[in-house]
């Protein structure tokens, strides 16, 4: 069963339909985007993120007929993600397929195939009884992973860190895994150490928003702690990557969200205390066991 999070954004005619991820799991509703301004609003409010923002970028380019200006505008709103590299991929595709919308379609189709291949590669290195701890949400790729494991005669059990404050783990990943009837449990982010200590998990799998050739990654806040703890408990930590660059990870801007968003999901209207909200963290390569690139290439430490 494919999750609607596999393709949370689609283009129909002159309208982009964006799955409102902030409404999940209570409601599966779509927002209409007809202009760059609409797209930036949806992006800024985190109605979509991760693979959704990749699709939103590509379709906004197709809609407006622009690439570089769109990349600049998107990067202002979500500074950590590498929209410039994505723009480069799109420009490269237009060399072969000059019509922008056709080039976008070919990239999107290719990305889905690549995600399936990437899941197969990861499945090959996971244990037979994979007890997988994950954080945030990788847009349906864990379902591809479970399918790939099953085809190899392996089993998968998932443990999902709730991923505060936006709860991508408990609202999105738990929801899509349950709909796919896969065994899954949700945990408080702070329970990860106990889970590892008790041997309940034997591997960690996460996505990454950015990665470098050296192997450092940037991913959802909380990823670094999981990697450090997994390293301490000798549990392998695998990362799904795309477009690794030969840059210093510390040079990448880490987005900090408005502090009031820390309390979005809590009851009451405040006043709330002063809060910190770095949206991502850096995990150095030395705490990562393996990288599975979007091209399907596997590198192990």
């Amino acid at each position, binding site marked *: 069963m494919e999750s609607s999070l596999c393709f949370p954004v689609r283009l129909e005619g002159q309208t982009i339909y964006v799955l409102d991820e902030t409404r999940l799991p209570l409601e599966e509703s779509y927002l209409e985007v007809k202009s760059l301004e609409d797209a930036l609003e949806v992006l800024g409010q985190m109605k979509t993120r991760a693979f959704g923002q990749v699709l939103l970028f590509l379709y906004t380019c197709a809609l407006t007929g622009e690439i570089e200006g769109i990349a600049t505008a998107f990067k202002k709103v979500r500074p950590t993600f590498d929209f410039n590299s994505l723009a480069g991929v799109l420009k490269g595709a237009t060399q072969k397929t000059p019509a922008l919308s056709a080039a976008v379609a070919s990239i999107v189709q290719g990305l889905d195939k690549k995600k399936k291949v990437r899941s197969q590669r990861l499945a090959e290195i996971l244990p037979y009884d994979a007890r997988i701890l994950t954080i945030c949400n990788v847009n349906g790729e864990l379902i591809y992973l479970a399918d790939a494991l099953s085809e190899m005669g392996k089993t998968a059990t998932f443990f999902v860190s709730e991923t505060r404050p936006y709860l991508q783990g408990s609202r999105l990943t738990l929801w899509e895994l349950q709909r796919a009837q896969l065994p899954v*449990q*949700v945990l*408080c982010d702070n329970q990860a150490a106990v889970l590892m200590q008790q041997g309940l998990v034997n591997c960690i799998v996460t996505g990454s928003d950015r990665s470098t050739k050296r192997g450092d990654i940037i991913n959802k806040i909380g990823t670094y702690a999981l990697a450090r703890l997994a390293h301490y408990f000798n549990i392998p930590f695998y990362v799904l990557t795309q477009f690794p660059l030969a840059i210093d990870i510390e040079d990448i801007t880490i987005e900090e969200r408005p502090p009031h968003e820390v309390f979005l999901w809590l009851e009451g209207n405040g006043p709330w205390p002063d809060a910190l909200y770095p949206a991502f963290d850096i995990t150095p390569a030395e705490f990562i066991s393996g990288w599975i690139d979007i091209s399907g290439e596997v590198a192990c430490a």
Partner: protein
Amino acid sequence: MRLSEVKSGLLLWGVPSYQGIAEITKDMKAEKGMLVLVPEMMPHCLGLTIVKRLQEKGIRCAYTTDNMLGVLFYKNKVETLMFFYKKMANHHMVGICGSLYVCLLAHLHSVPIKLRQGDTLPQSALDTSVLDGHLRIQYNEMMKTGDESIPLDIIQ
């Protein structure tokens, strides 16, 4: 508050006793500008109650979610962890849910851990909205939460 505005803070974990709060107040007077980092401490959002108590005493606080602790250690924003434990048993310190997570992160980043006897909050003071606040999703598949034991070699 931006992360760059935090020079170095005292990270608190567990429920501070009145003596503990008095100690933090004294430390703050001695070190002007000291910031107390108060994590959410799920599943009961203890941090929200504790931050109110500290602010009433004039203590400057910054609230974080539990999964932000890693980046605070990574960026050297934690000078000391003040761990309010519940009890000591069999060469282990017993603390609230998440105690192993925070103590191990402190240990791995060579951050000193100050041990203090903690308090308990009355059941009525606990935010039982737990995982998702106002959404109130029915979680049938939630890991059981409870107190955690931390081996002394991690703390020392």
